[in-house]
């Protein structure tokens, strides 16, 4: 039976890239639809009426929204190259840290890189504390998922790539090698995986976008 897989995304979004990374890792063919988030398509609004956001995965006409929900759907539907362990405790652990990244790290990273000067020190400290948890979680593993890229690695794509780009765009220094040697190594490993590499937005384009969107990189630090 012919299978139709659509991904509604935005080129710069780590969230829609997560979905593409998972599909690529499993060798699943899909059609990508770029959304202009300032001018959302009728299809997007139809497929995600509740949040009206990307990413949305549409599998044989049925839409799934929310990137972490989509990742689990992908893993349960296409069983080759699993991204979650079979062990319930390891699964719970991966889910815990993925949620931690989305609920805590994202806003902390933004504040640390883009926040106002007087709050800057504090924001940097808070973001560092959060990253330290992830540094510790990595331990001696090559990937968060162990020997292969897993759900948590994909969820951590923000840290593996977007954070570095944000740092360059804003001049902030957060993910340093001296403080986070394991995370830095992991980031290098992560972006070298072909299914991941193929799915990273071009660096220069992303820097320019961030500078423009967040009005950074124009003041001297």
């Amino acid at each position, binding site marked *: 039976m012919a299978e139709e897989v659509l991904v509604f995304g935005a080129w710069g979004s780590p969230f829609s890239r997560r979905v593409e990374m998972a599909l690529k890792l499993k060798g699943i063919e899909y059609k990508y639809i770029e959304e202009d988030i300032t001018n959302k398509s009728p299809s997007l609004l139809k497929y995600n009426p509740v949040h009206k956001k990307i990413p949305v995965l549409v599998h044989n006409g*049925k839409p799934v929204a929310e990137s972490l929900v989509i990742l689990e*759907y992908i893993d349960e539907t296409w069983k080759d190259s699993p991204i979650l362990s079979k062990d319930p405790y390891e699964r719970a652990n991966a889910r815990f840290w993925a949620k*931690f990244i989305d609920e805590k790290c994202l806003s902390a990273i933004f504040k640390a890189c883009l926040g106002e000067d007087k709050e800057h020190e504090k924001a940097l400290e808070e973001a560092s504390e959060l990253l330290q948890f992830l540094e510790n979680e990595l331990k001696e593993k090559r990937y968060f998922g162990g020997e292969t890229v897993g759900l948590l690695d994909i969820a951590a794509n923000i840290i593996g790539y977007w954070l570095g780009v944000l740092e360059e765009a804003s001049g902030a220094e957060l993910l340093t090698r001296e403080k986070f040697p394991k995370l830095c190594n992991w980031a290098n490993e992560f972006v070298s995986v072909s299914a991941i590499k193929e799915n990273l937005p071009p660096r220069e384009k992303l820097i320019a976008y961030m500078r423009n969107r967040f009005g950074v990189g124009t003041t001297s630090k």
Partner: protein
Amino acid sequence: MAKNDVKVLGAWPSPYVMRPRIALNIKSVNYDFLEETFGSKSELLLQSNPVHKKVPVLIHGDKPICESMIIVEYIDEVWTSGPSILPSDPYDRAIQRFWAAYVDEKFFAAMKGLRSAQGEERKAFLDQVTEGLALLEEAFGKCSKGKAFFGGDRIGLLDIAFGSFLGWLKVTEKVNGVKLLDEAKTPGLVKWAERFCADAAVKSVMPETEKLLEVSKVLAAKMKGAPPPKN
């Protein structure tokens, strides 16, 4: 001294703490409920959940699991001989997870806002809560497919996620003098709520509304009497 392999660290008024307890009841798993003292955090809690320092925590053997919905999924995956909490079809599972995330992120924020808002803000939050309930009413129709619960014949993930808020929903209705679950607007949910609260897995852990109201008053007083934030 009774020793149990399964412990839940929690507090009885918390909807989040209710969730793993319902799940364990569904699976007929015995557990020790270790009640945290209001206003302080035990050593065990700080050790088991160093990241968030929050309840609930499930301690299975020596392994801590945190975050209520993650705990519920863990329980479902470990105790496979009991009734399933998640459906078997990946798409149905995704829909349950989607709405559970909606409840925690959007719906809860609106309810929380409503509890503490004043004047104009209150109306805005009330609208959000009403809108949310309309969405959930629609979701109930689609998920239940005419059956008793979001999960079908039996309580499932989304029933647990949303149903755990019913106590506080009733408190919000009383405190604000509004009817949120309404026979006219959300008939499906009204009946579902009755069935959920009466279910054997839920009854013993759903706090009485009167008791929650008292907690609500204590919390409100605490917020009013709180010292101003330091600059």
